[in-house]
């Protein structure tokens, strides 16, 4: 099972980047979301996966019983998920606004500021 995760992360990164390079606005959003998911999953896996045990110290003991899962990557992950969620929500509203204002969902047409 664990051997599958790196491949899954790789595929998520690749698909996210591919969608971002696409010229359709909706696929840009999909790309952003998938890329965010890939980074989160990477952070989770690279911190080390441990089965079955958590880092809560029992009342009778001084330290948690080994082996336990490292709680730091999980804390980082939670923060990263929340931040990613906020930015993705903003991006979705922005894309909707772009579509309303420019009446186009083709990213190639977003070049009026580059012409002088």
């Amino acid at each position: 099972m664990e051997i599958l995760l790196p491949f899954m992360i790789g595929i998520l990164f690749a698909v996210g980047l591919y969608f971002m390079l696409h010229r359709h606005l909706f696929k840009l959003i999909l790309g952003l979301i998938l890329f965010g998911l890939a980074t989160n999953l990477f952070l989770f896996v690279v911190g080390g996966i441990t089965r079955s045990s958590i880092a809560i110290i029992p009342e009778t003991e001084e330290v948690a019983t080994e082996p336990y899962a490292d709680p730091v990557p999980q804390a980082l992950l939670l923060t990263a998920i929340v931040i990613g969620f906020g930015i993705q929500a903003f991006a979705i509203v922005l894309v909707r606004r772009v579509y309303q204002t420019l009446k186009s969902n083709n990213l190639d047409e977003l070049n009026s500021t580059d012409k002088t």
Partner: protein
Amino acid sequence: MHPNLLLLLPLLIPLYGAIACLLCWRWIKLQTAVTAASQLAWTAAAGMLLYHVLGQGVLATQIGNWPAPFGITLVADIFGALMVLTGTVTGLAVFLFSLPGLDRARKRYGYYPLLLFLQMGVSGVCLTGDIFNLYVWFEVLLICCFALLSLGSTRGQLEGAIKYVTINFLASGLLLTGVGVLYSLFGALNLAALAQMVQEANHPNLSLLPIAGVFFIVGFGIKAAVFPMFFWLPASYHTPPIAVSAFIGGLITKVGIYTLVRLFTTVFVVSLSFALPLFLVLAGLTMVIGVIGAAAQIDFRKILSFHIISQIGYMLMGLALYTPLALAGTIFFTLHNVLVKTNLFLISGVVAQAEGTFALKKLGGLYLRRPFLALLFFLSALSLAGIPPLSGFWGKLMLAKAGFASGNYLIAGTSLAVSLVTLFSMTKIWNEVFWKKKKKPAPPVKKTSTDVLRQRLLYLPVIFLMLFILLMGLYAAPVLMLAETAAAQLLHSETYIKAVLK
């Protein structure tokens, strides 16, 4: 005052200011007053922090009193405190400009709270001592940039914002990946703890450090607009109103450079043999491509945007040379550039408020009508190009001297040649905007006295920044000393480690 409080104030003042602004959402005048008070207090706090750090050495505090490698650490050394202080000065100037220079609608929809949150992010990035918190503060700063860039939702702004959001989201993802790699290698996120582990030289994962380094080079390279990754910058920085783009354009890319310098003098010190030649090549290309891009533009703000990229090359050059003199040059040049670039953006704003356009072809004859503005532009532009005795000269002198001293003649020569082309671009603006005769003089519009007063008020922030630039140029010795002490502190990270880990 307790020194630890001093370290927190640059974060707390903008935060409370922004919350107070949000609470009085409907009353713009109240928001303005709150923002004015916060800006002044923020500047004072940053000044006091710098004073303390100069006197007492590196200052560190642990939030919640958790001991260092586990808790959240805030650290201020001279470079960090200097960056915060420069940020506060530009913040004050941009705020002064926004009073008469920004439309009511944008103020109504949260310009002030967003600006304050952005400033909190800048303080956070400069003062944090933990690599994951660095990422979080960068996100705080970026989300405010996103909102400020698209505030107003004009066509151009939306186009610029979507490019900016996409590429910066990508960069943040790469940074987070880098943080993950670093944690998996060393099991720590505290900068001081990482620096200590790296220096021990027998850690089994030490040879894998460049892998993490690459993620940070690319991530912060995108945020600092380094050569192959800068295309988002000229596509977005010229779209929002000046009160927004002056602050973002002046400060945010330099914060990217600041983090690169910080990381490559603490954590990645052992992978330098791999990173420094790369930085050297990137610095040269960034300078050259940026300045050539600027030469092709015919819009006031676009020329300035391309020059941001070109100047980033100089800052990277100092890091790439990695001698005490070169790092001091980078620090001095960063401080100088934040002030000068913001000032040039503000001047372009004054011109546009008077003439209604940024296009060089439509402008002209301002020297005759506004000689004082012409003088202000002249001094800022020469300072940017590096003409003695203005501030840019000293920074470039240090960098070029460090380049020649370390035998990197190519990069030193490139930096000097790029200065000449910078002068050419500035001459172009001077010729088109101030010198040439306006072909069709606009029909004289009757100005009311409030209009005249408003345009006079716009000069205030420009003069304010000009004073700092002149001071940095004409009275350079103390600032140079400061930069040299800061560079020495960066290169001797033992004091930093000791202050954090006690």
